[in-house]
């Protein structure tokens, strides 16, 4: 494995994380720069810098032919896709396989099977993994809806086949409500999507998004690296993650069950890399398979922090058919608690993206903080990429300590020149329900921490700036 040349087809903090692991393992990390980002900060950690021509993602990070050419030109042995972009693209991983280039990720078959929602659900079912119960096909009549309701138990959700984004769906607590709502939802479906057909599925109250980290090698060994709680979301995107899950808490039986279920899913597709199985869990702690992400995930660090397993390094070892750092499931244990805050260039109240140029960046952190980021003074966040610019991660002896540390770290994280969600995180970390670990995916929508964000003191900041500028006798 040593000396192999690996191309990182990604940018930002994940490109940095991958380059660190490659360097540490004695491989050659090759990073790319594009014409709309000629000095990307991730190159700081790459041993070699090559140009990926083009100035938008279609021509660069998503352009398979161009990437294949780079692979030829620079004698590349392997590719790490990071997350997003081509990380879960079957065509790409097959193209690499054909060339005999190592794809640092799962085999193309697994990418394909878990990529298609319907297929993955089917595989999960066959593997005996619970999926959200409901109608197998379209439901034409009220009677049928009621029949299914009685079968799977209330409450149920009436949902437009073509639905999405909250439109064309309505929960029903009993037969009467089904009778009352059925026609209305059909009309809504027709008007919103031009198609009236409905589905019926179990309605899960205050659901939790809980996922299990998987690490597998090419010899058929599949391990779980325990779970993550990712229920604090806005626009169906995570903004805070914790491990272990405070909702599962000390219920080791449920923890064991969900982790072993995840291993079942991975084995069903002969999984052979790092990946994540996502579940939805109800208040009754019953959980159902949602999907499997066949890539390294944004929130992988909290798992690394509580288990001590270097997921990225082991993912690389697996790809090159090297033994993992451990030989049995029992070697992996939870030790302490970790929390991750996603730092995004967005308005803390509207939570809408707010790109711009960073004017100032300073960190004053306590012990036990890890900050995976790609921020530096004068770095410009363009609208071309995801607004996430950093991940603030705290590890503590227990949840209370981790909370204390991440809160103090947040006070010591100063990013000037752009709007960020730091102020929103500050509110959440002080909010009673979150502190108690009592929150579901409805948290942002119902508790509405964004409404308690304090306006920043413009005038004082303004005075401090003037004082500094004048005392430095410079226009900065």
């Amino acid at each position, binding site marked *: 494995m040593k000396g192999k040349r690996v191309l990182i087809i990604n940018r930002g903090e994940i490109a940095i994380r991958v380059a660190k692991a490659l360097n540490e393992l004695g491989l050659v990390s090759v990073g790319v720069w594009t014409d709309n980002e000629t000095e990307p900060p991730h190159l700081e950690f790459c041993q070699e810098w090559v140009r990926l021509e083009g100035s938008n993602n279609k021509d660069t990070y998503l352009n398979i032919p161009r990437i294949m050419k780079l692979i030829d030109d620079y004698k590349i042995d392997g590719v790490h896709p990071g997350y997003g972009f081509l990380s879960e693209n079957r065509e790409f991983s097959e193209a690499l396989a054909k060339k005999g280039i190592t794809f640092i990720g799962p085999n193309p078959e697994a990418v394909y099977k878990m990529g298609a929602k319907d297929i993955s659900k089917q595989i999960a079912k066959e593997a005996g993994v619970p999926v959200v119960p409901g109608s197998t096909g379209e439901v034409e009549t009220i009677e049928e809806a009621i029949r299914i309701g009685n079968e799977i138990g209330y409450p149920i959700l009436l949902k437009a086949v073509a639905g999405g984004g909250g439109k064309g769906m309505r929960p029903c607590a009993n037969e009467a409500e089904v009778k009352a709502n059925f026609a209305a939802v059909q009309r809504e479906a027709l008007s919103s999507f031009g198609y009236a057909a409905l589905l019926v599925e179990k309605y899960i109250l205050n659901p939790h998004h809980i996922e299990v980290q998987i690490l597998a090698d090419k010899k058929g060994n599949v391990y779980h690296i325990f779970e993550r709680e990712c229920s604090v979301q806005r626009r169906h995107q995570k903004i805070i993650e914790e491990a272990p899950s405070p909702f599962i808490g000390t219920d080791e039986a449920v923890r064991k069950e969900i982790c072993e279920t995840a291993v079942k899913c991975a084995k069903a597709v002969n999984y052979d890399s790092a990946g994540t199985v996502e579940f939805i869990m109800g208040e009754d702690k019953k959980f159902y398979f949602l999907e499997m992400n066949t890539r390294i995930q944004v929130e992988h660090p909290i798992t690394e922090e509580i288990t001590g397993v270097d997921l990225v390094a082991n993912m690389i070892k697996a790809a090159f058919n090297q033994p993992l750092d451990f030989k049995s499931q029992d070697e992996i244990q939870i030790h302490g608690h970790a929390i991750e805050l996603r730092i995004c260039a967005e308005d803390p109240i509207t939570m*809408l993206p707010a*790109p711009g140029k960073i004017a100032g*960046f300073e960190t004053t952190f306590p012990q036990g903080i890890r900050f995976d980021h790609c921020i530096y003074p004068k770095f410009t966040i363009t609208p071309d990429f995801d607004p996430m610019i950093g991940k603030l991660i705290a590890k503590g002896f227990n949840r209370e300590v981790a909370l204390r540390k991440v809160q103090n770290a947040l006070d010591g994280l100063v990013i000037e020149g752009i709007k960020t969600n730091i102020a929103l995180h500050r509110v959440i970390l002080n909010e009673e329900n979150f502190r108690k670990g009592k929150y579901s995916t409805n948290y942002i929508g119902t508790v509405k921490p964004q409404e308690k964000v304090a306006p920043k003191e413009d005038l004082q900041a303004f005075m*401090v700036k003037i004082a500094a500028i004048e*005392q430095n006798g410079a226009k900065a």
Partner: protein
Amino acid sequence: MRYYFVNQDMKEFSIDAEIIPGAMEFTHEGKKSQIWIRKLAGKNYYSFDQISWKKLPSLGVNEVLVSHSEVYKVYRGFKPSGLNKGGAGALITQMPGKLVKIFKKIGDTVVKGETVLILEAMKMENEIKSGADGTIKSINVKEGQALEAGFLMVEIEEAK
């Protein structure tokens, strides 16, 4: 010396200040206050009492800072035009983006809240609505054009 300041939300401040050794003395609504500056390990720190000190991330001001006609530094690419055209009839980009669609042409009438154009930013389409009833006076952009923040895209002649 008097300083003027316009923040991201186009809110304007002004304050009087004098340089004193090691600090700046401010006068705001009759009250005097000092802010002390000290360098440590190459970084700037500020203090209100010379005992408690806080790190200053940078000397850069991300908004517009003007001291008696001298513009200090503009980080967020505000066009000066953006400064005095904050009215209901001025459609100004609040973030960099790409213009996707214009629904109106010069001379068209618009009502308050009517969508005039669509701006794509951070992979999302934002409907830019008119802030007033009136007629389109000028259109300074064309579809597909990339725009920085603070750019005056459309001016609307407000109906009296």
